[in-house]
């Protein structure tokens, strides 16, 4: 294949955020050859997203929390011999030569030739794509650290310009140093909102309110998880102090139930919610603003793994995360995962998981006991402790079933295909659709550019009431758009990968027998996903 890397690396790490960086540098420090791939031009992922060097930013840490941890990983990466493949959009992962090696397929290169000279000219459905070329990286092990994207719940007016993702506002601010407006309401659910409000206010925006649909009492139901993670309380206190300083008002058990304006947002309606997130009649207030940053938590980005039939589990908030062994291995032998792909848990948790996965991979590939063993045990304890907190956190902010009461029949649910809530309800009530896939076929919801990443939660909620069997994770054969010629050039895989439940003991020592086991639901709150079936089509 053109652009192929001839040799096979020990491990290919997909994603250069906190989990991927920790995994890559740890693996390299343990003597493995490592390729690190990321779509961005520089390391950091979404959490440590920062301005391009060309901006000459001298204080990127001003928009960040825990920048010292990133600086440490960045410096270790620079000192390592990790092959850094930035600007690489991975679109699929396949298995080669009877399952002994992985092939990571990516596209790289400028879509526009930088100087007008286009070396590779390909043709896709939209015309010429100059300069992009396919790259294949081969490796004995994969560490999937692809992070997450934001979960969105629609409401009337959410497609108006000026209504932006809370994570989107944060992303554009962190890397592009721009704000969506001067008076920005922050709304939705989850701890990200506090961080977004804090940074928007620090960068000069007026933030009249943070509107949080949950209460914070959900955390109190698991005092153990809180007590074991005092740093999380400190973090919350830090955000709380910053919000006070910027005179930002935090409204809990409330939601933005409508955005107003003709060509852009001019005001929002904030309503009180009951326990199930149903708007309480008579509580609606109008808040003027020129932007709304809104998001309802995060969804693990696991397309590359589910396309291979990887087993998943349901996290406490109903999202699908990868089911992992205690040493971070997926149900596919040779593929490990860390960070948000294993369930939303935050940057600290991601770093611990990335390091743990790297130690486990090194043990497997070298056939030696992971060393030092105490480090492995300490990492596992830290991972388990933070995972317990993460489950508490996601459960506390999980959308209540009453949120669909915000929708009017003419509210767009699918932004790409402009499919309204009324049409989805019609597909369910009149045409008997019982799952999101049937709704998609009947209405085109989820069939557009984003492939249901923005509307998936909403369509599933409107289709199946919360009490029925949960829907299986979305399966998207391609993780990013690619030219058809690239697809046509892909060799047919030698064998279909198959899952295996017996995880090989990394060292064969009695000492380690308790260190690994089959991938499966890894918490009391995660009923095993009923549908890890590899090929339902």
């Amino acid at each position: 294949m053109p652009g192929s890397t001839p040799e096979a690396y020990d491990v290919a790490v997909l994603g250069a955020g906190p989990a991927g960086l920790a995994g890559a540098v740890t693996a390299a420090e343990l003597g493995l050859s490592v390729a690190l791939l990321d779509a961005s031009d520089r390391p950091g992922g979404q959490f440590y997203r920062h301005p391009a060097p060309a901006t000459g930013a001298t204080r990127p840490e001003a928009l960040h929390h825990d920048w010292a941890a990133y600086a440490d990983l960045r410096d270790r990466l620079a000192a390592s011999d990790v092959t850094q493949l930035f600007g690489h959009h991975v679109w699929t992962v396949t298995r080669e030569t009877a399952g002994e090696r992985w092939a990571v397929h990516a596209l790289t290169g400028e879509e526009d030739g930088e100087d007008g000279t286009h070396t590779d000219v390909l043709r896709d459905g939209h015309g010429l794509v100059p300069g992009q070329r396919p790259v294949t990286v081969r490796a004995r092990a994969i560490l999937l650290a692809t992070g997450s994207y934001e979960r969105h719940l629609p409401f009337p007016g959410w497609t108006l310009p000026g209504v932006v993702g809370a994570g989107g506002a944060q992303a554009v601010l962190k890397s592009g140093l721009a704000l969506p407006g001067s008076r920005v309401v922050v709304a939705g659910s989850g701890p990200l909102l506090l961080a977004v409000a804090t940074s928007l206010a620090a960068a000069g925006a007026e933030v009249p309110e943070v509107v949080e649909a949950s209460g914070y009492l959900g955390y109190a139901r698991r005092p153990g998880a809180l007590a074991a993670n005092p740093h999380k309380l400190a973090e919350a206190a830090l955000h709380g102090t910053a919000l006070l300083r910027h005179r930002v008002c935090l409204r809990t058990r409330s939601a933005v139930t409508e955005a107003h304006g003709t060509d852009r947002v001019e005001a929002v309606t904030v309503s009180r919610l009951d326990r199930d997130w149903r708007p309480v009649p008579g509580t609606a207030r109008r808040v003027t603003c020129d932007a709304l940053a809104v998001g309802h938590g995060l969804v693990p980005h696991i397309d590359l793994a589910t396309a291979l039939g990887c087993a998943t589990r349901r996290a406490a908030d109903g999202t699908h995360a990868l089911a992992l062994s205690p040493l971070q291995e997926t149900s596919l032998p040779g593929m490990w995962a860390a960070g948000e792909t294993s369930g939303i848990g935050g940057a600290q948790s991601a770093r611990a998981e990335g390091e743990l996965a790297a130690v486990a991979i090194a043990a497997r590939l070298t056939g030696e006991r992971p060393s030092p063993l105490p480090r492995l045990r300490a990492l596992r304890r830290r991972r388990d402790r933070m995972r317990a907190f993460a489950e508490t956190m996601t459960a506390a902010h999980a959308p209540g079933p009453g949120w669909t009461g915000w929708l009017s029949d003419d509210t767009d649910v699918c932004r790409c295909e402009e499919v309204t809530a009324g049409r989805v309800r019609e597909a369910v009530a009149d045409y008997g659709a019982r799952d999101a896939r049937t709704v998609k076929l009947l209405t085109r919801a989820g069939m557009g550019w984003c492939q249901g990443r923005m509307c998936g939660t909403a369509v599933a909620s409107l289709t199946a009431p919360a009490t029925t069997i949960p829907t299986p994770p979305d399966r998207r054969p391609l993780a990013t758009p690619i030219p058809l010629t690239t697809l046509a050039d892909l060799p047919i895989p030698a064998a279909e990968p198959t899952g295996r439940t017996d995880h090989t003991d990394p060292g064969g020592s009695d000492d380690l027998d308790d260190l690994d086991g089959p991938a499966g639901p890894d918490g009391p709150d995660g009923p095993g996903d009923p549908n890890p079936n590899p090929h339902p089509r």
Partner: protein
Amino acid sequence: MKRDERTPAGLVGASPHAAAFTITFDGRELPVLPGQSIAAALWAAGILAWRSTRVGGRPRGAFCGIGQCYDCLATVNGRPNRRACLVTARPGDAVTTQEGHGHAGLDT
């Protein structure tokens, strides 16, 4: 010159090594901080919409900010369907509002 710390660029102490430059949006000239994405440059100029939808002709701009939602598609130097949040602005780039499916002007 004292920098206003209550702006994003001031907060992080941005001081570009390269000369500032401009791009155009529907013919209007906009300043760009070197290294900014096209979406960021448009937001900084107060522009939130640079696409109209295929069905309803409704205005859209950047939403997810990380290349997942495709709401920020723009026509850049005559080429449609570019994700403005992922494309770094270059001197003289001509960004134009993308109408509908974005195939207008293509010979496909």
